[in-house]
Structure formats: structure tokens, C-alpha cells
């Protein structure tokens, strides 16, 4: 099995988990989760160094999900990678559960940072990357940001900070699915020309198909002099035809026939 096949398999499992979790919990944001599943699969399946039996291993690579509403994806990928039993995913969004809709670190091995209020992940990732530089550590820091989240000014403070401090141990992956809460990113508060903006902030910027595992891997795996941003062009709801590119699946919960169809499509895919 090639590396790409392995990560495809991981992505498929994660998609199955998250659709079931969202269905059982009656929660929202499934479109946002499916958008980043391939990114998570490549990071956890092929790029990042970690020890699932020792989540606090000091030399591990760090991962921050800044778009915390896609937390179900992180829980699922951590479970599939052995941080905890996949059975625990059944608790997602249940009364009394610690598996909150927005990603939480409390009691969940492998989660570095609780997020949920947008624009707060990158400053923290920058602090972690700076700490690694100060302490001459070789591990890397990865952060996944939503594109809509770039409306938040705190991200741009951190874009300036990370390049000023030459944090080339920091990689940001922007989930560029072009949809936010009500309309498209361009209709809401236009980001374009995004690539040029980010280059002008003195980052190394590349652009890939965010569902192509080989493209993702080679972009992430390239060493750079500057901190690195990968604009991953993605499809919100990727993997379930009726969710793809539909804003309503930021909110809706798949149930009944739609749930069955979603599961069937994910199973049959690949």
C-alpha cells in the first residue's frame, strides 16, 4: 500500500466517524469538518511525528486546529491514530461528555489547544514555534485555519509576528473552501488576492488541491526559510455529494435517509 493509499484509507475512516458522530450528537458543522479531513489524514498519517501512547512526548510535532468547529475531525483522526479508543467518539456532543462540538483539550489525549473562538489558534501556534526556536528544538508546529476565520484581525497580527521572528518551523494550512457562515468569503469580506496578501506578509506561500494527498504532502514536507502557508483549495462537505459546496451543511445534521446516503457514498468512494 502506498503512503497515499494509507492516508486515503485514514481519511475514509475519519469521514465515516464524523458523519456518525454528528448524526448521533445532532450537531452541526459537518461541512466544515469534511472540508479538512484530507488535510488531517495527511498530517497525522504521513507528516507529523508523534507517539500516540505518549501524547506529551516532548519532541512531538504540534497541531493546532484554529477553526475549532471542525473538532469532530480531530477527535476522529486522533482515535484512528491510537490516541484513544474509537468507542469514545460515541460520546461526541452527548450530555456530560468532554467531547465538545468545538475542539477541547481537557481529558482528550493529543489535543494541544482548545479552540472555538476564531482567530486564536495562530497566535498560540506562533508562541509554540517561538518556544521551539528559543529552546533549539527540532519539532514543527502545524495550524489549520479556516478561510472565513481570516476575517479576524488577530490572525494578521500573528502573520506579521511569525515572519518577523523567522518562524520557519511553523506551517499554516488554510482551508480555502470559500464558504463562510452566510455567504461566500468573497461576498462577505473579500480575501482575494489572498496569495499575494500572504506573500506580502513575508511568508512562503503555496497553493494546492486540498483533497489531493500527494500534493498536500509535498507542499507540507518542503522546508522553507520563512514560515509557510499552504492555501488548500477545498470543497466544503467534501465526500458527500449533497453536502458539497452547500452553506446549509454548516448547520444541518444528517439524519434519516440523508444519513444513510452519506454513509453509503463515503463507503463506496475510492
Amino acid at each position, binding site marked *: 500500500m502506498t503512503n497515499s493509499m494509507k492516508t486515503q484509507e485514514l481519511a475514509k475512516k475519519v469521514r465515516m466517524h464524523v458523519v456518525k458522530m454528528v448524526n448521533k450528537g445532532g450537531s452541526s458543522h459537518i461541512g466544515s469538518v469534511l472540508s479538512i479531513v484530507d488535510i488531517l489524514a495527511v498530517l497525522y498519517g504521513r507528516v507529523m511525528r508523534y507517539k500516540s501512547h505518549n501524547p506529551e512526548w516532548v519532541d512531538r510535532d504540534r497541531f493546532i486546529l484554529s477553526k475549532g468547529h471542525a473538532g469532530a475531525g480531530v477527535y476522529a483522526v486522533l482515535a484512528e491514530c491510537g490516541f484513544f479508543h474509537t468507542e469514545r467518539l460515541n460520546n461526541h456532543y452527548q450530555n456530560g461528555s468532554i467531547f465538545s462540538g468545538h475542539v477541547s483539550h481537557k481529558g482528550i489525549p493529543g489535543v*494541544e*489547544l482548545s479552540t472555538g473562538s476564531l482567530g486564536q489558534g495562530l*497566535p*498560540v501556534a506562533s*508562541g*509554540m514555534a*517561538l*518556544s521551539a526556536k528559543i529552546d533549539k528544538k527540532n519539532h514543527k508546529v502545524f495550524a489549520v485555519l479556516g478561510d472565513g476565520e481570516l476575517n479576524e484581525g488577530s490572525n494578521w*497580527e500573528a502573520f*506579521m509576528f511569525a515572519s518577523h521572528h523567522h518562524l520557519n518551523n511553523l506551517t499554516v494550512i488554510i482551508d480555502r473552501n470559500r464558504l463562510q457562515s452566510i455567504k461566500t468569503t468573497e461576498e462577505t469580506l473579500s480575501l482575494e488576492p489572498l496569495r499575494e496578501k500572504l506573500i506580502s506578509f513575508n511568508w512562503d506561500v503555496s497553493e494546492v488541491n486540498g483533497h489531493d494527498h500527494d500534493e498536500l504532502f509535498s507542499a507540507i514536507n518542503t522546508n522553507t526559510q520563512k514560515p509557510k502557508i499552504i492555501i488548500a483549495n477545498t470543497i466544503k462537505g467534501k465526500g458527500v455529494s449533497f453536502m458539497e459546496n452547500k452553506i446549509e451543511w454548516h448547520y444541518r445534521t444528517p439524519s434519516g435517509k440523508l444519513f444513510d446516503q452519506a454513509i453509503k457514498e463515503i463507503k463506496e468512494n475510492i
Partner: protein
Amino acid sequence: MRDALINSLFQLADKDPNLMLLTGDLGYGVFEEFEKKYPKQYLNVGIAEQNMVGVAVGLALEGKVVFTYSIGNFPTLRCLEQIRNGACYHNLNINVIATGGGFSYGGLGMSHHATEDISIMRALPGTTVLVPTTSDESKAGVVNLYKTGGVGYLRLDKSKYVNVELIDKISIGKANILRKGSDITLVVAGGIAQEVMKAAEILSSANIECRVVSLYSIKPIDIDVIRSACKDTLGIVTIEEGNLAGGVGSAILEACYDNEFSPKVFYRFGLNDKYSAIVGSQDYLRSYYGIDCDSLVFKIKSLINKQNL
């Protein structure tokens, strides 16, 4: 108050290379020596308080003890949610230092009046809130926060310290007696204590002996000192240079009610749900809002007289 602060930071940074000081581009003439001596432990993050706290969280998650510094409301209100979700929820040793409490920057206008910071920082679960009144408390405050896990807030102002040497150990959860007295207890936090001490002297000449308490540790609060004030004196008057809602007086009232203490007299001096559109020196604004020495003397006399009738 800043000199005492920097002395303590020097001592701690010398012992612990993991201590980091972050400033939001403020501290001209204060941090230059620190930066020179500990370049790896000092970072001016620029005028970007949200990022400052985020970076502090990242550093603290990796084991650093972080002090963030700015003036007025910038290191607290401007980045409050980062403090809440990042620093507090992750229970990190991050300590926020603000100078310019109350009307320290009175002439600069309401943006620079830090008058709700105590209430707001106190409301965040798990925080320690220290408001020094004396030089000793200021020095100890930095060390106390460094040694205590979790998020701390140290609120300094530009007033001169009350010149009282404290003999007892200054620690979190413990108030300090600035002046002995058994008629009534005046509880104060911060530079406004100067006015309180002056008032206590004047009242003494009118045969009213005030106990003056520097609350210092607003959270956790010193229950014993409050109990004694309720039991051994007529009651408690609180004086704060900030909004009353949720502030020092509120904290004392909560402690009284929760512990079933019943002071005969209770009165709070502070701002009553106001922003100040008026500018002026710290002294001018204290007088304007009735929290200066003369206002205290007048009111405390009337509180005592009422009881004696």
C-alpha cells in the same frame, strides 16, 4: 510602582531562564536594561495585545512562565477572550501586569481610565488578582504570581506608594494592615490608599481611629481580616479607584454575605456605573468623583455619627 516591579522581574529572570516578559510596545525607559541583560527572555510583540496573549499561551504551553505587560485596559480588556479561552482555560502560568490603574492617566481620556479591570479579571475562573498599595506589596506581587500556577493579574498605578513598611510576609490570600485602629475599618486597594491614609490621620484627630487594610489580594480574599473588621470594629468602608460593580467593595460584600458576617456599617467609595468624560490629573479626578481624602473624611464622620445617635 514600576521600579519595584522591574526589580522583582530582574531577580526572577536571573534565576529562571524560562521566565519571559512580553510587552505590547509599552515600557519606554523601563525595560531597556532587562532587554539588554536577558535578550532571550524579553519580547516586544508590537501593538498587538491579542497576539501577545496568544503567543504567551503558546510559550506557556511549552513550559515558560510568562509575564505580559501593557498599560491601562490594553493587557486585559483588549485581549480578554484570549486570556479567558487560552490562558485561563488551559490553566497556564501567565501573569498580566497593567500599569495605569484607575485614573493614573487621568488626562488622557476614558480610553486610558482603567476602571473595570479589577471586576473583570476577578470574574474569570481561577485567576489571582493582586492590587498592591505599598512598595513591598508590589515587589512581592510579582514573586507571588510567578510562584503560583494559573493566571495572575497585577494591577499597578502611577501613584506613589503608601509609605508603610510591612513586617509580615506578603502572600496571596492575605491582606495587610497599614494602620491599626478599632473604630471602623477602611479597606483599600491600589494607589488610592494615599487618600485613605491621609483621611485616617485627619479622623484620628477627631478621635476616630480607623483601621486601614490594604486588601492586596482581591482574589483569593482574606476572610480573616474581613471577619475581624466586622467583629472588632463598627464596620467596613471600601475605597477603590474604579467602578463599584464587581470591584473591591463587591468582593468584600460577597465575602461578608457568604460567611454570615454582619458589619453594622458598610459603605463603598468608587465610581457608580460611570465612565469619565472629564479629564484631569489623578488627584483632580479623585476629588471630582468623591473618592479623595476630604470626601472620605466627611462621609466616614457622618457614618460614625449616625451610629452614635
